[in-house]
Structure formats: C-alpha cells, structure tokens
C-alpha cells in the first residue's frame, strides 16, 4: 500500500513537470527566436543567436512598429477607461436603485452575453460604415465600452458593499454622483484593477473586429501587424518572433505584477 502511494506520487510529479515544460517552453522559444534569423527559427534552433538588434531594427524601421505600438496602447488605454466608467456606473445603477423594469433590462443584458460576436459582426460593420467611422480607431473602442460582462462583474462586487454607507452619505447631503465618485469608487479599487486587466486584455488581443475595420497600414494594431507579417510570401520569422514578444510582454508583466487581481478578474464571473 505504502509503495503504491510512492509510485503514484512520482507519477504525479512527472505529470506536473511535463505540463510545466509544455506550458513554459513556447515562451522560452519565442525569446530565443527573437535573437535568431528567419532560417534558424524555421529550423527550430533552440539556442540564442546574435540577430536581436537586426530583428529589432527591421521591426521598428521597415514595419513601423513605433506607430503601431502607440496605436494599440492608445486604443486599449481608452477602452479600459471608457469601460470602467460606463460599466461601473451601470452596475451601481442596477444594484443601488432596485426596480423591476431595470431588473428586466439586466436579465436581457445577461442573455445577450450568449450571442457570439460572429452574429453581430455584419450589422456592426454596416453601422460603422454608416457612421463614417471605417478605418478609425474610435470604432475599435466604442463597441467594447458597453461590456455586459464587466457590468456583471462590478455588480457582483457591489452586492457586498454596505448600503448604510450610501444612506449615511445621503443624510450628510452628498449628491448621488458625488457619493458614487468619491465614496464608492475608492473603496472598490481592487474590482477596478481586475476589470481593467480583463478589458485591456480583450482590447489588446482583439483580431477579428480590427481586421474588418482597419484598412490602412498606419492604423494597424500590434495583433494585425503580427498576423499580416506571418501571411507574407517570405515571412521574416525572427522579426515576427520579436513582434510576438513585444505583444506578449505587457500581458506577462501585468500578470506577474498583479497576479491576484488578474485571476480575480477571470473568476469574477462565477464568484457569487
């Protein structure tokens, strides 16, 4: 019995180590790839090369990486700010001013989460064309700002917010918006952090919608650039690897810096 346990233990560790290597290896490989030439990347060279500066140079001169990186940062930054304001206000409205008609509206919102993006894509595209917003960054921001998931996420967290504090503020003569902005927001900062990470990730990694809306190279996002680089006739794999590392870096940094909020952001949907 004891012996069987021991073998089981060893098996578990072997399994974990395999999973560890499989999970982490592609990250190692993309960093190595960043320092190698296209030929070496395709051949699967596993050691560091000396092409890092050549790759960086090509990426930032031939592919306009600076401008594209700024595009992505701008779009994602504005999306996060917009989403946090709009979604947290809505969640506050739903939770703190209960009414039957608003509850019905909320139910409809939750139901709409089940509708896949593919079903919205064509009318959205026509709408953007009609508004004259084709090839404009604003159209990449607008459609994510009213995020049902993040409203839901904020509402879950507001459920445990002590209502007495709001009553007390009201008695003290604080206006409703004042209460929200100066009392409620500062006390649920960690919810804001988690929602910000979630919304940043969504916008930073978006592909299908930008692919449809963005039509000129100077308006591209990092994701679009990586995709178009790899569909080139002779893809420059070393340069692509460099771009992939740059695209992945913000997410990895946020993850290691704010691991708790990060995971909370993903779990928000099931914690009741």
């Amino acid at each position: 019995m004891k012996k069987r346990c021991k073998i089981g233990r060893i098996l578990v560790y072997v399994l974990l180590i395999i999973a560890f290597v499989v999970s982490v290896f592609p990250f190692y490989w993309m960093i190595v790839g960043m320092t190698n030439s296209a030929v070496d990347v395709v051949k699967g060279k596993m050691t560091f090369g000396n092409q890092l500066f050549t790759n960086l140079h090509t990426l930032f001169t031939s592919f306009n990486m600076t401008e594209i990186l700024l595009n992505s940062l701008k779009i994602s930054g504005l999306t996060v700010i917009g989403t946090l304001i709009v979604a947290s206000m809505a969640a506050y409205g739903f939770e703190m001013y209960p009414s039957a008609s608003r509850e019905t509206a909320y139910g409809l919102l939750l139901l709409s989460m089940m509708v896949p993006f593919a079903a919205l894509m064509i009318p959205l595209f026509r709408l953007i064309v009609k508004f004259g917003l084709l090839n404009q960054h604003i159209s990449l921001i607008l459609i994510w700002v009213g995020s049902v998931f993040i409203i839901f996420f904020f509402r879950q967290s507001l459920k445990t917010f002590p209502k007495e504090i709001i009553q007390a503020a009201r008695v003290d003569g604080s206006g409703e918006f004042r209460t929200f902005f100066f009392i409620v927001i500062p006390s649920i900062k960690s919810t804001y952090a988690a929602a910000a990470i979630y919304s940043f990730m969504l916008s930073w990694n978006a592909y299908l919608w930008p692919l449809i809306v963005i039509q000129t190279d100077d308006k591209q996002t990092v994701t679009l650039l990586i995709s178009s680089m790899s569909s080139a006739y002779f893809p420059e794999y070393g340069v692509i690897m460099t771009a992939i590392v740059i695209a992945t870096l913000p997410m990895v940094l946020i993850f290691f810096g704010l691991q708790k909020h990060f995971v909370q952001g993903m779990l928000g949907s099931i914690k009741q």
Partner: protein
Amino acid sequence: MLKSSTKKNADRTHNAYGWLFISLALILISVFMFYPIGHSFYLSTMRTKGIVQQFVGLNNYIRLLQDPMFILALKNTFTFFLIQVPIMLLLGLIFATILNDNTIKFRGVFRTALFLPAVTSLVAYTILFKMMFSSEGFINNLLMNMHIIQEPIPWLLDPFWSKVTIIIALTWRWTGYNMVFYLSGLQNIPKEIYEAAEIDGAGKVQQFIRITVPILKPIIVFTSIMSTIGTLQLFDEPMNLSMGGTTSSTIGPGNSLLTLSVYIYNLSFKYVPNFGYAATVSYVIVFIVAILSFIQFKVAGDKN
C-alpha cells in the same frame, strides 16, 4: 398626505437616478449589441447584392443545406468542439485536483506555469505554434531525434494533421485557464470529505469521480458553456494557422480548418459580399449555442 407626496417624489428621483446611472451603458449596448442581434436576423431573410436587398423568407436557411462549404465548416467546427473541449476540461480538472493537494511541493510555481499560456494573444500563440509545427521545425526535429517518428509529420500540410495541430494549440492555450476556475471551486470543498472517503477506503481516482466532479458540476457546466461559445466562434486560430493567412484561398489544406466564423468572414469580406447569407450562417451559430447550452444545463440539472 404631505409626507406621502414627498416620499413619492423621493421615489421618483431615486428611479430617475437609477436610469441615469445605467443610461450610457444602455445606449451603447442597444446600438452595438441589441440592434445588431435584431438586424442580423432581419438580414438572414434577405438576399443582398451590393445595395440591392430582396426579401427571400427562409430561402437562405434552405440554401444552407445544399451548401457544401457550409456543411464542411459545420463538420470542422463540431470536430474541434467534440474532441478538443472534453480533453481540455478533463486535463484542467486533473491538474486542478493535483494542485489543490497541499502536500505537493512548488504548487504555486506549477499553477503559475500552467496558467501562463492564457495571457498570450490568440494570434501570437497561433503563429508561434505555426512555426513550431512547420515541416522542418522544432516539433518534428524533436520527435525525430527521440526516434518516435522516422519521417517528418506534415503538421500543417495535411488535412488530418492540421486538425491535430489546432487541437494541440487550443489545449495548450486554454487548459490552465479552465484549471483556475476548478481550483477556485475546489478550495470551497472541505478537506474532511476527502479524509472521510480515505478512511472508507476510496482511492484517489474514486474520490475524483465520486466527490470532486459532482461538487464542481456547476463550474464544469459554466466552463463547458464558455468553451462551447468559444469553439463555435473559432476564428483567430484557423485563420493564422493556415498558410498565407487571410490572403490564402483555402483555410488549412483542403479547407480542413474552415470554421463557421471563418466562413462568415469569407462570405462577407472576401468573396462578393453576401451579407444576407452570411447573417444566416451567423444565426446558425446562435441557434447551436442556445441548444448546446440548454442541453448542458439540463444534464447538470438532472443529476443534482
């Protein structure tokens, strides 16, 4: 009398503030969500050519049944769904169970490592996998050096192997993500239940099937619905895994990676735009998601 009227007034302002707070979100969601959902359905009853639209009733839906490309896309999507989702969820569950055991050393390190793939962008990791699985690439080198295979496997050049590649890639990206949901659920299960089972002589595997899975059922249903929606919308991966990406004429060798979402994209933006028919295909996804979610809820409900 006076009191009740001030109360009424207070209620009215209260109600007005409620609407005021949600108004921005409601406007945005109505314009960018509710309107498109309705308009998509309307479009699915139309034949569109350029700006000319003509009502055709259910004709678009009938046309689906005779469209080999649609059937192929449906088949591919279901293949990914039926094979990949169970593998991934099972792996997620197994690793969550292992990492919930606090006698395991370096739990935190393993947990972080397994979750790490979930921070990569879909396009980035797909292209990474495309390079690793190229004919003379890293994976083939590794397998040949280990003498597991004699000839390189045509991962991206063969209809069957390209499906295998995408399933491996998806599993790499999402297993740790799902594991985190299970881990958070497992933390709420009291340890005493397992201790009691141990005393009663239940092995680890039995504990897993008899205790872990039933208790986690709501979370398993949640993750499987999320994965269903995700798989039915698969776009970034097949598009970027195929040679030539958006510019290529087929998605994967012999269209082996053509999914419903890719087909909708092609119908709308690559071929001569046919928004009406594309909207019809998109509504098929809506129906399938609704039906599958309903089934998953039912399966969970029955046994509880």
